[in-house]
């Protein structure tokens, strides 16, 4: 099943990832949304089972309900459909830092086995192999949201034993835990292959669910550490017709608007 093309089941692995992630968002929750995959999943949730989810983007748009997916974090679409628009300092102080965010929805270039996220550099900091965009709002979202949902396509380059740089902390470099943080950290990582969750004792990410048709061997192969598998490994429900329809409509509307 290719990532961009619908497979025999009639959906792509990216669609499966987005649908799965959207299901983790509960109606009425306040969600601080990163651009890209998280934004797609959060809006899918809003348009399906969680109409009262409150979406906040770091551009200061609070309670926004865009008709199309924003290309950037500050698209006019987000401002026009928001309950209120505040300045960027305020979104971090009065809203995130004050503990008003239930779910932080993030992605990253790298994640390690303790859920630490890297969006800064591949290689050393002083002379990086690849200079990534940097932190943005992620370090404080990761620390302060009540819980963090991470979305990331599975690959050995992305799922590494230790990230090259901890931009945003999960459970710390050695899985120490969350002392000093107001939120619980990454409670779930959704990929195009399945779902990982931290082990309740060691905080090491382990495979707890597979997407339909995926195999444990493949996931382990795409993971840079010796990935543990939950004895009660689940298989996720495939996307419903409704989920798929809403997602595809959303993406079609988006593509049409942005190609203008």
């Amino acid at each position: 099943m290719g990532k961009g093309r619908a497979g025999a089941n009639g959906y792509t692995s990216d669609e499966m990832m987005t649908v799965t992630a959207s299901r983790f968002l509960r109606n009425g929750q306040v969600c601080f949304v990163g651009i890209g995959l998280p934004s797609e999943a959060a809006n899918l949730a809003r348009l399906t089972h969680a109409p009262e989810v409150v979406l906040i983007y770091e551009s200061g748009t609070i309670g926004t309900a865009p008709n199309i997916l924003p290309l950037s974090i500050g698209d006019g679409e987000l401002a026009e459909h928001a309950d209120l628009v505040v300045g960027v300092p305020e979104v971090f102080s009065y809203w995130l830092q004050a503990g008003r965010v239930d779910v932080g929805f993030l992605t990253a270039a790298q994640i390690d086995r303790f859920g630490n996220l890297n969006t800064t550099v591949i290689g050393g900091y002083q002379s990086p192999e690849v200079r990534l965009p940097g932190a943005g709002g992620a370090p404080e979202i990761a620390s302060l949201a009540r819980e963090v949902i991470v979305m990331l396509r599975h690959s050995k380059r992305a799922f590494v034993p230790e990230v090259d740089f901890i931009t945003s902390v999960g459970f710390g470099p050695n899985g120490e835990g969350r002392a000093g943080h107001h939120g619980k950290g990454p409670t779930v990582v959704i990929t195009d292959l399945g779902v990982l969750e931290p082990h309740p004792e060691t905080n090491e990410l382990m495979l707890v669910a597979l997407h339909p048709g995926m195999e444990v061997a493949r996931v382990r192969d795409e993971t840079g550490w010796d990935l543990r598998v939950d004895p009660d490994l689940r298989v996720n429900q495939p996307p419903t017709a409704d989920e798929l329809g809403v997602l595809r409509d959303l993406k079609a509307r988006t593509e049409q608007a942005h190609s203008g």
Partner: protein
Amino acid sequence: MTEFGSLRDVIADLVPDGASVAMEGFTHLIPFAAGHEVIRQDKRDLTLLRMTPDLIYDQLIGVGCARRLVFSWGGNPGVGSLHRFRDAVENEYPSPLDIEEHSHAGMAARYVAGASGLPFGILRGYRGSDLVKHTDVAQISCPFTGEELAAVPALNPDVAVIHAQQADRRGNVGLWGITGVQREAALAASTVIVTVEEIVDELAGNGPNQAVLPHWTVSAISQVPKGSHPSYSMGYTTRDNRFYREWDRISRDREVFARWVEAFILEQKDFEGYLSALDDETLLRRVVDG
């Protein structure tokens, strides 16, 4: 008092080589016209400050105007990398670029402290992040609870440059929609340059009292319609998403980038020239194809 002038004069008079300059705008209202004018005037050794460097700083860095960059997220929003920025950091091309990076929350707190006349700001931030090893963050204890918090130094640019929808004839500036950190950047700066879509008798904004910066806080205003392109000015223009995607191709290659700057900025007299050049589809093709 606010002066009204051509962007060329304003940049020439108020942006000296070596200055620290914050051209702010959070996706919306990015002051591209002013950035191009800085490039045309070949300003050097600038310290560029900005939460989200975006294409405008990719251009400034790519031509070598900047010595140092202070920022919190340097990407092409929704597209990918800023290739000129990466080339500067990864390969010191066209020249080495000092960087100092923060989180958004930290940068915002720095600007707020700057605008407030405080030497530092506090936040519950940077916890567990490797950023603290590489940037200017201190710990501070709450004198009442003992809680440890992060402290960041105030950010006070020599020059802030913003683009706004409107100014009135007295120089009061109105902007709306996503306003980012522009007020703070302007109020933290020694010199404030504003480009506007329109100069009006009375600020429309959203009702009365919507000046965001009163005239006596603004050094100079220059009217530059569409001056935020390819970013947007809510109520006036929409974001040119296609340009953002094309930039990936333009900026990826040093030669293409150099030709693009030559054709679209240096060979143009002003931003109006740039906008006309964009209408000429063959020009971009020639630039890309060499």
